[in-house]
C-alpha cells in the first residue's frame, strides 16, 4: 500500500491485541507448555519434518524437492479504546517437487510425520500427472546449499513486549495535548513476525526470523472549523522493524510540531487553484519517485511477466523480448540506475535466503538508462542464459523467489528496489530552483496499465514559478508513457531527498483482497510478499498534466 489505500478510512479494524510469548501458565504449574513458540518447536521438530518430507518426495521419484515451513504471528492494535480483540497465528507446510520438468505443490497447516510424508508423495504424484504435457525442462543451476539460522536485526521483538506496556504506550500518546491530539478512530499499528524454514533435496536447511511493523496514526486539526481534517504521523510507514519503530518516531515531538503542518496545509488549500492542462517540467519528491520506480520499472522487469506467464493474471511487460533488449535497450536517461536488493536494513523484502534457499546479491535492473537484468528465481535464471554467457555473468538466480507463507507456491516477487540518487547532495529546493515554470508533486502515487507501458501519477501538486514553490494545484494528474517519462529524467536529488514506498498487504490483513486493484499482486491464487522501494527526488521534463475529473 502506498497511501491511496489509506483513503479507506472506514476499514473496521480488528481491535487491539497481543500475542506475547511469556507462557500463560506460569512455570511452577509447568506441565503443559502453552506458550506460543511451543506450537512449532514441539516434537517432532521442524527439521525432522522437513527431512522426512524431502526423503519421502525423493523416494516417490522427485528429481528435486524443497519444503518450506512458516510460522506467522500477526498482531494489530487500534487506538480506539483499550479494545483487546483478535490475534492471529498460522502455521504452514508446503512441499514442491519436480519431475521431468514439471512441478507439483502441496501445502497444509501442521501435521505429524506420516501426514507430511503423505503430503510429499502427493506433490510428486501431482508433478507426474502434469508431466503428461509436452516436453519441458527446468534447469535449476547449482547453488551452495544454505545452512544455518539468521534473524533480521531489530531492536525490540514486539512479540516480547507485554500487552500492558503496549496499551500503556497508546494511552500515553492519546493523552498528549501539547500541540495536536491523535484521532483514535483512524489510528492503528500492526506487527508481523515470520519464522521460516527452507530445506531442499540438495542439502539446504536454513531457518530465518523476519519482522515487519507499521502504523497509520492520524492527528486532528486543532482548528475546530476544519473538523475531519487530519494529517499523519511520519516515519511509521511499514518497515522491517520491531517495537522501536513506534518509539523512534518521536510521536510526542511530532504532535507538538503538528500545528505548523496544519497551518501550512490550511494556507495551501485556501490559495489552491485548478491545475492547468499542459506539458510541464515536473519535480517529484522521493516518495513519489519511489512509487513510480516500483509501479513502472519494478513491475516491468519481472521476468515471468515479461515472458507472458502472468498474462492471465497481473499482466505482462513492455520489456517483453528480454534476450534482445538486455544490455541494449535504452529505457531511461543516463541518470537512471535501478538496483534490486534483499539486503537493505529495515526494508521489507530483506532476507538472508530467499524462498528457494538462494542467498540474494544486490544487482542492477537498469544501469545508466539501459536495461541490465530481470528479477528471477532459480528456474527463470536459465531462461536468460544466452545473455549471461554473452556478458560473462554467471547464470544464477537473482534471489527473487518469495511466498507469503508456506501455504502458497513460491514464485518470483519483487525484491527491494532502489533508484540511485544523484552524486552531489542536491536537495529538493535545489531541484525546484532550477525550474522556471513547472509543477511539484509530493507524496505521489503511480499506477500503470497491465503492461506497465503507460500510467498516471497523482499526489499533492504545487505550481513552480521562477524556481519557487507557488500555489497548490487541485485536480491535476500526470499521464505518462513509461519509457518517455524515464528518458526525460533530467536531474536527480542527492541522498537527503531519498523517499520510501512500502508495498505490503499486512496493514489490511483480512480485507486486502478487496483492495487488490491498489496492489501489484501476482499469481493465481494471488500473492503479495512485502517489499520496499527507495528513490531520490527528481526532475522530469515535458510531462503531460491532465485533469481526470474532466471527461472527454
Amino acid at each position, binding site marked *: 500500500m502506498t497511501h491511496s489505500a489509506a483513503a479507506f478510512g472506514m476499514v473496521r479494524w480488528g481491535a487491539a491485541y497481543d500475542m506475547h510469548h511469556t507462557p500463560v501458565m506460569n512455570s511452577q504449574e509447568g506441565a503443559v507448555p502453552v506458550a506460543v513458540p511451543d506450537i512449532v518447536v514441539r516434537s517432532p521438530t521442524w527439521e525432522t519434518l522437513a527431512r522426512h518430507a524431502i526423503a519421502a518426495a525423493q523416494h516417490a521419484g522427485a528429481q528435486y524437492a524443497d519444503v518450506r515451513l512458516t510460522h506467522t504471528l500477526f498482531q494489530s492494535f487500534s487506538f480506539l479504546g483499550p479494545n483487546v480483540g483478535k490475534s492471529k497465528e498460522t502455521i504452514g507446510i508446503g512441499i514442491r517437487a519436480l519431475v521431468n520438468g514439471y512441478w507439483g505443490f502441496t501445502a497444509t497447516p501442521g501435521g505429524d510425520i506420516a501426514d507430511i510424508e503423505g503430503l510429499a508423495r502427493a506433490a510428486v504424484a*501431482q508433478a507426474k500427472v502434469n508431466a503428461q504435457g509436452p516436453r519441458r525442462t527446468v534447469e535449476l543451476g547449482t547453488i551452495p546449499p544454505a545452512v544455518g539460522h539468521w534473524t533480521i536485526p531489530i531492536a525490540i521483538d514486539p512479540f516480547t513486549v507485554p500487552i500492558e506496556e503496549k496499551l500503556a504506550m497508546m494511552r500515553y500518546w492519546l493523552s498528549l495535548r501539547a500541540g495536536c491530539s491523535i484521532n483514535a478512530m483512524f489510528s492503528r499499528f500492526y506487527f508481523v513476525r515470520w519464522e521460516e524454514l527452507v530445506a531442499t533435496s540438495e542439502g539446504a536447511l536454513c531457518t530465518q526470523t523476519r519482522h515487519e511493523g507499521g502504523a497509520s496514526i492520524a492527528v486532528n486539526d486543532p482548528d475546530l472549523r476544519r473538523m475531519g481534517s487530519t494529517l499523519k504521523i511520519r516515519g511509521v510507514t511499514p518497515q522491517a522493524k520491531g517495537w522501536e519503530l513506534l518509539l523512534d518516531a518521536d510521536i510526542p515531538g511530532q504532535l507538538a510540531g503538528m500545528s505548523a503542518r496544519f497551518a501550512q496545509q490550511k494556507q495551501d488549500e485556501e490559495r489552491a487553484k485548478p491545475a492547468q492542462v499542459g506539458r510541464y517540467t515536473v519535480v517529484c519528491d522521493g516518495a513519489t519517485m519511489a512509487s513510480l520506480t516500483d509501479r513502472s520499472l519494478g513491475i516491468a522487469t519481472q521476468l515471468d511477466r515479461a515472458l507472458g506467464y502472468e498474462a492471465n493474471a497481473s499482466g505482462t511487460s513492455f520489456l517483453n523480448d528480454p534476450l534482445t533488449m538486455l544490455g541494449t535497450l535504452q529505457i531511461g536517461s543516463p541518470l537512471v540506475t535501478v538496483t534490486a536488493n534483499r539486503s537493505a536494513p529495515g526494508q521489507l523484502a530483506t532476507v538472508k535466503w530467499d524462498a528457494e534457499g538462494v542467498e540474494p546479491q544486490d544487482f542492477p535492473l537498469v544501469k545508466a538508462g539501459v536495461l541490465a537484468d530481470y528479477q528471477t528465481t532459480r528456474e527463470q535464471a536459465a531462461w536468460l542464459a544466452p545473455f549471461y554467457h554473452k556478458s560473462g555473468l554467471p547464470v544464477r538466480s537473482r534471489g527473487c523467489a518469495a511466498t507469503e507463507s508456506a501455504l502458497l507456491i513460491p514464485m518470483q516477487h519483487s525484491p527491494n528496489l532502489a533508484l540511485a540518487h544523484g552524486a552531489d547532495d542536491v536537495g529538493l529546493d535545489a531541484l525546484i530552483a532550477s525550474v522556471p515554470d513547472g509543477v511539484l508533486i509530493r507524496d505521489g502515487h503511480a499506477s500503470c496499465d497491465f503492461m506497465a507501458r503507460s500510467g498516471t501519477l497523482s499526489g499533492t501538486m504545487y505550481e513552480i514559478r521562477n524556481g519557487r514553490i507557488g500555489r497548490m494545484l487541485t485536480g491535476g494528474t500526470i499521464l505518462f508513457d513509461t519509457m518517455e517519462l524515464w528518458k526525460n529524467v533530467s536531474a536527480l536529488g542527492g541522498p537527503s531527498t531519498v523517499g520510501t514506498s512500502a508495498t505490503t498487504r499486512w496493514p489490511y490483513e483480512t480485507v486486502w483482497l478487496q483492495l487488490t486493484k491498489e496492489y501489484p499482486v501476482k499469481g493465481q491464487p494471488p500473492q503479495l510478499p512485502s517489499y520496499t522501494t527507495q528513490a531520490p527526488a527528481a526532475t522530469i521534463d515535458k510531462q503531460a498534466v491532465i485533469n481526470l475529473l474532466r471527461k472527454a
Partner: protein
Amino acid sequence: MLHDHERALRSSVSYGRLDQAPHQAQPQQRPRFLSEADCHDILNRLHRLATGGGFTAVTILSYWSGNVRWGRNQINTTGEVSDNWIEIQRMIDGALGSVTVNETTDAVLLAGARQAERLAALKPASRDAEILEGRRPFDLVSPAETPSLFSEATYQLDANQRAKAAIALAQRASAASMLSSGYIEVSAHSRACIDTTGRTFYDAFTRAQYSVTVRNPAGTSSGWAGTDHHDWSKIDPDTLTGIALDKCLKSQNPVRIEPGRYTTILEPQAVYDFVSNLFKSWGGMDLADNLVPTTRGIGPFNRDPRLPGYTRLGEKVIDERITISADPMDPEMSFPAYEVGPGWRAPDLFPLDTYRKVTWIDRGVLTHLAYSREEAINEHDRNTGILNSGAFHMTGGTMTLDEMIATTKRGLLVTRFDQLQELHFTSQLYRGYTRDGLWLIENGKISKAAKNLACTESILFALNNVEQLGVPKRIFQDAGFGVFTIPAPAVVPPLKIRDFSFTALTDAV
C-alpha cells in the same frame, strides 16, 4: 416486519444439526476440509480446555483447493492446498478475547484459549458483550431459502483430471501457433459458527473457475475468456478457450483509435467489471455512506450533498429498463445465503449475517440500500439487516450481441476492463483500461481491431445512457481465494451505451 420462518427460528435456540453427535471419521473418509463433526469437536475440546468461566465460541472457515496454471502453453505452477481460519472466542464477564489459529491440535487450541482468556481479562465489558450474552439467535433462513452449492464434480476433479484438461486446452492455442496462459481452480469450503450457548451454524460449498488468455507470439494481440460456477461440470472450458483464441487471432493488427466519446457496446464481462464497483465493499450501495459524508464524500444515492440524511430511495436513478436484484436462490446464479467470519462487514460479535432476496433497483428506481445486521440491531432495533453480498442479477433485453453490433453505425465493442479505479465516489466516476479485445464497429460490422484505450466514466452516467440491452449472461467473478473465498456471482446483459468516454490511448496489450 418479520417473516414467519424468522419468528419460528427466533423461538428455537438455533437452526442446525444439533442432534448429530460429533464423531471421529476414519482417516481415509475424512473430507479435505473441516467437517461439521470436526467443527463440533473443536468447540467441545475448547470447552474442556477453557478456564475462568464465561462461554466459548468458534468461527471456522476451512478449505481445500486444487489448481493448475499454465503459461506459454505449458503447465508451470500447480498446487493442492488446505487451510483453516479458526477464531477462538472466550467471553468472560462480558469481555471478549479472541485469537485466530489454523491448526486443530489440542496444544494449539489450548494455547489459543489461554491467550483469548488473557485478552478478555484486559478488556472491559462492553455493550457489544451484552448483545452476545443475551444469546441473540443467529439470523437464519429456512432450508428452502438455502441453496445447495456443493458439487461432487468440482470436489472430485483431481490433479490428473486437472492436468489433462490443462494440457488439452493449451494444445488448442499451441496448434494455432499462439501462446496461452490459463488457470483451473476447484475448491471446497466449510464454514461454522458454534458456541457453548447452543447456537450452531455449518455449511459447505464448492467453487470452480476457469480463465484463459491467448496471445500471439509478437505480443500485439490478446484474447480472454473465463467463468466460474460452484459446479465444474457447468463450465465449458473448451468453448471459452475457443473464444479467447478467436479474439486473439482476429486482433493481431490493431489500429489506433482517437480517444473521445463513442457509442460503446460492452460485453457482459465489461458491464460487470464496470458496474460491479457499485456493489463491492465501499461501492456506494451502503445506506450509511448515503446518509452521512465520509472522507470520500457522500454516496451516489444521496439526494443533496448539502442535506445529509436524505437518500434517493424511491427515485429513478438509472434507465427504467434495468432491474438489479440479488437472491441466493436465483437458479442462474445461486450463492451462499450467509456471510460468515472475518469479512470487514462482520465484526467479532456478529460472525454470521444473512443474504436475503433483495431488489436494489426496480425498473430504474432505487428501492433498497444496504445495512448490516449489526447496524440493524444497534440503530434500527431489528434483528435483520439488508446485506449486500456483491452478487447481482441485472435484467436486460432480448437482443444478441450480433444484433447490437448490426444496429451500430460507428462505435466500439469492449471485451472487458482492467484496473478500474475510483476517481470520484459521489458520481461513481472510474478510470481504467480496456483489455483483451477492443473492436471498432463501422456500418453494422466489426471493421477493425483497435488498440486499447483508457476510459474515464461514471457508472450512473453510463446506466442512464443505455441505448440497447442484450440477453443477460453469467460472467467471471473473482471471488477471492483461500478461506476468504466469497462467491458473489453475477448475471448481466451486454449494453450499448451512448457517449461512453475514452480519454487516452495505451499501447498496452
